[in-house]
C-alpha cells in the first residue's frame, strides 16, 4: 500500500456496529471496534483503493 489518504479523528466517525468514515466516492471506510482494540487502525474504502 502506498500513502495514506488521510489521518482521521475518531470523533468524526460514526458508530454503529462498525466505526465508519465517509469517503469521496460515497462509500465508507469501516473498522470494527474489535479491530481497533487490536491496534488495527487502517481501513480500506470498499468501493476504491484508499486507506486511512
Amino acid at each position: 500500500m502506498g500513502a495514506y489518504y488521510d489521518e482521521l479523528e475518531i470523533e468524526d466517525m460514526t458508530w454503529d456496529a462498525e466505526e465508519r468514515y465517509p469517503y469521496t466516492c460515497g462509500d465508507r471506510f469501516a473498522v470494527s471496534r474489535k479491530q481497533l482494540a487490536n491496534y488495527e487502525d487502517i481501513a480500506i474504502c470498499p468501493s476504491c483503493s484508499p486507506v486511512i
Partner: protein
Amino acid sequence: MLNLLSAGSNAQGQLGNSTIDDSHTFRACSFAGSLPETLPPSVTNVIDVTNGSNHTLALLEVMIDGKKSTEVWGCGDGRKGQLGPIYKRRHTDQGSTTIFQNLAFADAFDKLGLGGYTITTIGTTWETSYLALQKLGKRDLIVSFGSNDFGDLGVGKDSGDKTVEKGLGIHVVNFSHIAVGGKSIRSAQSVTVEKLRTGQRHAIASLQVVWAGKEPMQILVGWGAFRHGQLGTVPPSSKPFLTSTISKSSPTTPLEPTYHSRPTLIMSLAAPSDFVTEYSLGIHHSVFLHASGHVSFRGSNRKNQTQGLDACRNICDIKCTWNGSYMLTKDNPPHVLSTGSNSHGQLGRAEDSSSWKVEVPIDEDSKAIRTLACGSEHSLVCVVNEQGDDEVWGWGWNEHGNLGVGHTLDAPAPLKMWPPAQLPENIEPHPVRNVWAGTGSSWILCGNTDGTVEKTTSM
C-alpha cells in the same frame, strides 16, 4: 432537446443512468415514465442537482397545463429515508432504483399540514436531504429527512433517538428560538429562506428576517457537525485538532456531542454591503462571500482550506470541495483561485506556485469562465470558447471516472471534459445550461428546450 448527463461513482445507482456501474464518460440520465435517457417532457429546466453519499436529488422546473411549478426527483440509496417516505417503501420492497423517480411529496406535505407549499431549494448532507418550501403569505420553511447521525435533521434530537423515524420521517427545521439583539425569529413579521447550502455533515441556511418597522436582516443559521468550528462555535471541551489515540480501552460509550442537533446562530448582518451573497461548505470548514467582494470563513485550516481567504478581494463566486476552497474572480476574463488539499491534484495548479490561479487554458481574448462547480474532491468550470460554444473543463480526484474523460487518472491540471471526442447518441452538446459536481460525480445539463416544451403545453 434538453438532457441531463452524469459521470462517476455509482454504487447505488445514484447517477440515474439505469446501472450500478461507475461511468467514466457522460451518459444521459433516465426518468421513470419517460423514454430512456430523456427528461420528462414536462421539464423546462433542471434547477439544481445535489448528491449525498449514494443518493441524488434533482430539482426540476416543470410546465403542466400551462402552469409552472417544481418537482423533486431522486435515485440511489433511500434506505435511511433520505429520498422521502414513498421511495423508502419502494426501496425496502424492490431495492434502490437506478433511474430517477418522482419523490412526490404532495401527499406527505398534505398530511403534515404543508399543502400548497412550493419546493424552491434542495440540499443533501451524507445521508440526509433538505427542501426549502415557500407559500404566499406564509413564512418559508425547511424540511429534512433521512439520517440523523450528526444531528443532520436539525430537529433537536440526538443521533440515537429513534423517534425521528416515526411517522413519515419528514421534519420541519425550527428557527424560532434563535434571537438577534434581543428579538427572536418567532416574533418576526416574515422569514424568507434565501439559500440553503450543505456540506458532508453540516447545513447552513441564510434567512432574510423582517421584524415590524425594521429593515430586513440577514441571519445565517446552521446545524450538524461542529467540532472543527465549521458552524462558528467550538465547545470548550472538544479537542478539534488532536488525533485520538486508539488503545485497548477503546471507547465503548458514546463520545461527547460533536454536533448541534438544532439550528444555531452563525452570523447576523444588518448592513447590505456585509450581506452574504454566496457561501459553501466543506467537511470541516464553511466559507462566505460578502456583497463587498471579501470572504470570511469558519472552521478548520488543517489542509490550508481557509488560509489566506480573508485577504481575498474582488471575488464573485465561492465554492468548497471537502477539503478546499475555490473562488471565481471578477477579473475580465475571470480566474479561478484555489487553496486546500492537493493530495489528488485538486488545486489544479502547482502546489508551490506563488499564485492561487488554476491554469484553465483559456484564451484571454475570447474565452470566459461562466460557472464554477465543486464536488467532493474535484472541480469543474464551464467556459465559452473562441467559437462562442460552451465547454466544460475539470480537474482533481478522478478515481471513479467522475471527470467523464474516459479514464480514472487524477487530473492535476484542467482537462476538457465536454463536449467529448465521441458524443453520446442523440445529445445536443450546446448550449451547456449548467454543471454540478457531487460526491464523486459530475453532472451536465445541455441542449435546447425548444419543441419539447411547445408539444407539452399544447396538449
